[in-house]
């Protein structure tokens, strides 16, 4: 018998104004798994996670978390999960230690264990040195780590992380990743949402891709990449678009690859094929014979960016538009639950 941390069937969430933020999601996450929930802004990630942690009531379907029903047994669910919201949530007027201590008290950690638990968690997130500094003096990355520590005070077997690294610089992000891996290694199930494909690729055992409120693909990162259909040969060419057009035609029509999809890129062309590695040289020779100048080439394994493109027909960048820069942004439909018209919560 498989032991599931999350079992969700036909979950729907329709907001009062009729927006279908989540539209029939089925989900099973076994205990101990590092599960990634991947999708562009506005796809329904945050709404789904808020439904799983009992902050929103599903308007359809059933959800069991840690064996408890999210609607009927919401308190039991709250006792057994940790949740790190997309927006960093710490009390800026309290010190790091006081923040963790408040969380301990809120979750009913016995007084006798509290002191040890606080030190252990501050140590885990490398904030022991600044434990008595107020949180409003912290950098974004430090606040995130403090937030993460407060989500773990009750040693929950299941932790929800909603876009935990959005808006952080690469070194802060790496540090958090390390930390999440450590928690997962201790046996904690992790449900992570992200719009960074690299993040899901680095961390997750399994990935669900969500688009427009429903799951469009679900598998291990490696299996998802296999679905792209082979490896990718990127070719860079001299003088831009006219050269790309000719090169793409040659790649498609010269009979070099039995099975390939060819696309034009900014710098040249990209050929996706199981034979990208073995027949790549033939293409380069054909291009040279046609009088084109190859300025660079590279054969690589597909990334989740390619997966996303293959599944949804769009790149994640297109969907994100300009809104990703800088601070964390909320998923589009979630704004509906906050006060009308506000762009931030």
């Amino acid at each position: 018998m498989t032991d599931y941390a999350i079992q969700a069937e036909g979950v729907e969430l329709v907001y009062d104004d009729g927006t279908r933020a989540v539209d029939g999601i089925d989900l099973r996450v076994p205990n101990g798994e590092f599960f990634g929930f991947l999708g562009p802004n506005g796809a329904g990630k945050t709404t789904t996670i808020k439904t799983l942690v009992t902050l929103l009531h599903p308007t359809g379907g059933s959800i069991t978390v840690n064996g408890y029903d999210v609607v009927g047994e919401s308190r039991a669910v709250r006792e057994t999960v940790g949740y790190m919201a997309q927006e960093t949530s710490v009390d800026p007027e309290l010190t790091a230690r006081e923040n963790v201590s408040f969380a301990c008290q809120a979750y009913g950690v016995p007084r006798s264990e509290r002191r040890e638990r606080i030190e252990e968690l501050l140590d885990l997130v490398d904030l022991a040195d600044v434990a008595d500094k107020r949180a409003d003096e912290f950098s974004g990355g430090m606040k995130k780590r403090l937030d993460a520590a407060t989500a773990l005070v009750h040693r929950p077997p299941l932790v929800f992380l909603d876009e935990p690294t959005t808006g952080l610089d690469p070194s802060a992000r790496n540090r958090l990743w390390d930390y999440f891996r450590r928690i997962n290694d201790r046996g904690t199930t992790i449900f992570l949402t992200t719009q960074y494909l690299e993040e899901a690729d680095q961390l997750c055992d399994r990935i669900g891709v969500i688009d427009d409120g429903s799951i469009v693909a679900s598998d291990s990162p490696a299996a998802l990449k296999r679905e792209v259909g082979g490896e990718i040969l990127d070719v860079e060419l001299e003088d831009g678009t006219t050269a790309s057009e000719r090169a793409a035609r040659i790649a498609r029509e010269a009979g070099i690859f039995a099975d390939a999809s060819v696309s034009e890129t900014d710098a040249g062309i990209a050929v996706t094929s199981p034979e990208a590695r073995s027949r790549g040289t033939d293409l380069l020779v054909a291009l040279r014979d046609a009088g084109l100048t190859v300025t660079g080439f590279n054969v690589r394994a597909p990334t989740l960016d390619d997966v996303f493109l293959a599944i949804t027909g769009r790149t994640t960048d297109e969907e994100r538009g300009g809104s990703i820069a800088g601070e964390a942004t909320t998923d589009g439909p979630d704004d509906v639950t906050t006060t009308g018209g506000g762009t931030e919560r």
Partner: protein
Amino acid sequence: MSGETDGDATPRRERTGGNTFLGDVLVNARRWGLKATRNRFFLVGTLVQPIVFFVLFTQVFGQVATGALDSGSGGINYETFLLPAIAMQVSLASAAGSGIGLVNDVESGMFEKVLVSPMSRTAVFVGKSAAEIVLIVIQILLILGLGVLLGAKIQTGIAGALGVALVGILFSVWFTAYSNVLAVVTRDQESTILGANLLQFPLLFVSSAFLPLDAMPGWIQTIAAFNPVTYGADAARALVLGRDVMQVIEVTAFGGMWDTIVPAVAVLIVVDVVLGALAVTMLHRASRAAV
């Protein structure tokens, strides 16, 4: 780490159990108490303005006001007349801060963090209110002490001062509720401060707080009868003077100062319940919408 299988298809994880209701109340009261000590500017600020009012009013209007008092309340100095009203002003200023605390919590994400914890949601708000009440009592007792040093006289002594603090608590509830409604509606710190201050001063002036009502024009007397500040100020003043001071409702059934305190407290309770219910409903809705 792993849960027990008790015949169910899905094993249930062991629950942590959380706290009792009272435990949850204490946890939250402690956090807000701690935050209050961190926020010294607010603590001092809510005291400074009433103190400035007290000193300026007694110095600037003292001579004139004593004349007005002779016709109505007779035989007391303006310091004594004003002090109970200033105590209510302290209560009002502190209550205005309640909504600001809520907005800050929403903005810092702490509101949601608390909602997702196993704590009772009612206990969360009771705990925050408890911390605010303790603060109001301390501030009122401080201002009464200062007033006495500056020449006011509390006829009923320590018991009367404690009575004023109790009236101050009762008086703070409706404005706390109003400030929290503003917070839920605007979700914005500036708007909440502005909305609370906008009402605070007209309410104080169009009431029996600073002068006896019979010394003021008829229209002010009419509005004052519907202004909760009149009832707070009258109840506190009756306690400080030890006699009936109420002019908006004539009651003679209880004798002496109780002819003011009983009806005033009754009015305050009604206003508290109405606005409190509105605030609780809106907070409840806000928690369900989960920000």
